[in-house]
């Protein structure tokens, strides 16, 4: 399906919140499975987990929580996981910036394997962070401490790559997140340069988004990026505690600062916890709604998922944009106008 000629941005309201402390501790990333399955990657120093969850959240907190993998350095473990992605079969792949490898699991949690070798030569990794599949299911790996992007087969055979340290086009300073759109373009979050760079599938620079700051369109140590089916670009603007939305040309559109309510499971938990309920009753709750250090953003059809790192939850928004054809939106203007219709 091609991209629409234009969009009527009818709204992008907050939909729901998933998870809570104890279930989704420090969610760093999320992979969207089929039939409402979610794989929430949680990480803190000394603890990490892939929490298997559901778009419906849970009715109550139980002891039967399901996780995949565990903290450590052995088989089927990860120490400093950064990104989680899925393939067409819903197998899961996790980057580990401490162990310099990619580890994979089936959706049932069975360990499949891992690959990756520490170093700075071609095909070696130093602090792999963002990962994404291209249309051929080759994996792009942001090789963060080597300041480059490398492409591997799903099994870890080196294919190619680009980038070096710096702040010019095609250069990086500790890049983090990555995504590939349906046209094959690659978007890399250039963390320490406060920008997102867009490349074609061969690694040729196309454009960049952002500069340092906290104003509209400015970024403060961004970590994650996503592109939806309309070509809109979402950036997890971590240091500014928000997600920013840009159109396919990189023009700033709007921001999401968080609108969270209590998740279903959190409500159930709180109904049997009198003391924190009293404390909440005494507190200013405004800050509770807001995003805190989101480190990635994912889109799936009309839904945007924001792992809300310091708030132990995932905030979900629903895109209500309506595609427009040439009859429904005029041709682009070369300059702003004060004319009315």
């Amino acid at each position, binding site marked *: 399906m091609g991209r629409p000629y234009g969009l009527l941005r009818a709204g992008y309201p907050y939909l729901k919140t998933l998870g809570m402390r104890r279930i989704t501790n420090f969610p760093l990333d999320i992979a969207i499975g089929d039939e409402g399955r979610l794989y929430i990657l949680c*990480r803190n*120093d000394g603890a990490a987990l892939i929490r298997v969850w559901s778009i419906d959240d849970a009715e109550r907190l139980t002891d039967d929580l399901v996780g995949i993998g565990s903290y450590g350095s052995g088989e089927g473990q990860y*120490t400093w996981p950064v990104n989680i992605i899925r393939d067409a079969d819903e197998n899961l792949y996790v980057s580990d910036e*401490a162990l310099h490898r990619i580890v994979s699991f089936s959706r049932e949690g069975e360990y499949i394997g891992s690959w990756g070798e520490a170093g700075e030569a071609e095909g070696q990794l130093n602090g792999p962070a963002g990962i994404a599949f291209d249309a051929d299911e080759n994996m792009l790996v942001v090789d963060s401490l080597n300041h480059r992007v490398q492409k591997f087969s799903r099994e870890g055979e080196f294919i190619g790559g680009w980038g070096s340290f710096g702040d010019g086009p095609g250069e990086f300073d500790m890049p983090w997140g990555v995504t590939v759109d349906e046209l094959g373009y690659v978007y890399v979050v250039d963390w320490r340069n406060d920008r997102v760079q867009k490349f074609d599938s061969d690694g040729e620079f196309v454009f960049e988004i952002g500069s340092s700051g906290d104003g509209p369109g400015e970024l403060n140590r961004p970590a994650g990026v996503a592109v939806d089916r309309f070509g809109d670009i979402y950036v997890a603007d971590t240091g500014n505690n928000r997600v920013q939305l840009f159109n396919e040309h990189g023009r700033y559109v709007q921001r999401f600062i968080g609108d969270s309510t*209590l998740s279903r499971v*959190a409500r159930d938990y709180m109904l049997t916890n009198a003391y*924190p309920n009293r404390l909440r009753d005494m*507190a*200013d709750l405004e800050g*509770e709604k807001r995003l805190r250090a989101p480190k990635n953003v994912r889109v799936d059809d009309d839904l945007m998922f924001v792992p809300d790192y310091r708030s132990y939850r995932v905030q979900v928004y629903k895109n209500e944009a309506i595609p427009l054809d040439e009859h429904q939106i005029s041709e682009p203007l070369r300059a702003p106008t004060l004319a009315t219709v």
Partner: protein
Amino acid sequence: MAKSDLALMAHLLRRAGFGATRDEIEEYAEKGYEDVVEDLVNPERCPPLDEDIISRYYDGENHVIWTSTWMYRMIVTRRPLVEKMALFWHHVFATGAGKVEHGPSMINQIQMFRKHGFGDFRTLLVELSRDPAMIFWLDNNENRLGEPNENYGRELLELFSMGAGNYSEDDIKNASRAFTGWTFTQPIPLYPQGHHPSEFVFKPQEHDYGPKTFLGESGNFDGEDIIDIIVRQEATARFIARHLYNFYVADEPQVPAWPIEPPQDQEAIDAIVQTYFDTGGDMRAIMRMILLSDFFKEARFKKVKSPTELVTGVLKLGGSITAPQPGIGRYQAATGLMGQQLLNPPTVEGWHTGREWIDGGTLNERINFAVEHIGDAEKPGVQEIIRRLGGNGDGGSARLSPEDFTERCLTLAGPLDVGEQTRQTLLDYARSGGTLDLSAPEERGKSVPRVVHMLQMIVSSKEYQFA
């Protein structure tokens, strides 16, 4: 470079920081002692910590990550006295996570020490009195008009400024009345979605605006007026001077003994007190004066290392942490086993220091930690010592007599002064293997373990327990 210069620089960096690698000691010594002191007391002259890196790799909230991150700061900072002053004030204004479970407030308190620890003492006491962690720790949130809670007022005088015996019970009551209504906002609780910050708030409806008499002065005092009077007292200057001496210069008796046991160096205390009054309680000027003084320079190895100093010093010696790495939580766990869990002192009196750091259990922990850590020949710091012993720089020779082997290891691991018994033990070990030969690969295979073992013996010595 003279060995004495290096030894003095190492002393300065142990006390005003958390130890140093050999390269750092040489780099600083090249600059000159007075200039280094100026850098230490003017931290803005040196590059700040990379906060982005810390938040990228050590984000999150729990006691382990917070204390570990603080230790990481101590080890990698180029502004070591900022962290050392924060640790000093954490000792003096001891606030514990055992009661103050609200981590963000505990962390904010340490950040406040970083920010104001070098300023004037009055500002620091005002900020301390407005600090949510301290307010909760000593119940000032329960201190209201008509229902005073005297806990903070009492400790402010007894443990935070003047010391016991320098005020009356009425002074405590009136000081406490002056701090009524100084409280904090209720934070959103931890469950279900994480900690949120709390802030100081003054509630006029809970404040006692009535007349008060404090230390002989009368007026409608509020908390800041009380602090104004406190910081003018000679007892305050003497109390803080003795704390500074105990932390930075040489071990004193524990605080409760101070009213009955005079300072071991009255002249040093007098000099610090004089600087306090000459500068309006400017901690930067006071620290400069202490670090430049003869009594400080002559106080090498007159302090037992705190667990934090021991662990960070070993990690610096091993060159083990220069960038974030997983599992840093084990180091804060190690200090806990040695009797110092950061952010969680045992009481408001803080940790008992000096020889009270050492008992049979904690000594085992201290030695085991140091020996295990330095026992890894792959550690960069150990590799560097081997390189220097092997003749690559620093005048080393590829073949060392047992005597040179011993002396050079003591120099490179410190420089460390050891007593005759320790030196003889080290020499006996060195002689048991004959000449140390690092010249050829086949000899290195035998010699490197000998170097590692020698370093392990050094860090397990009695003398290494002292700063």
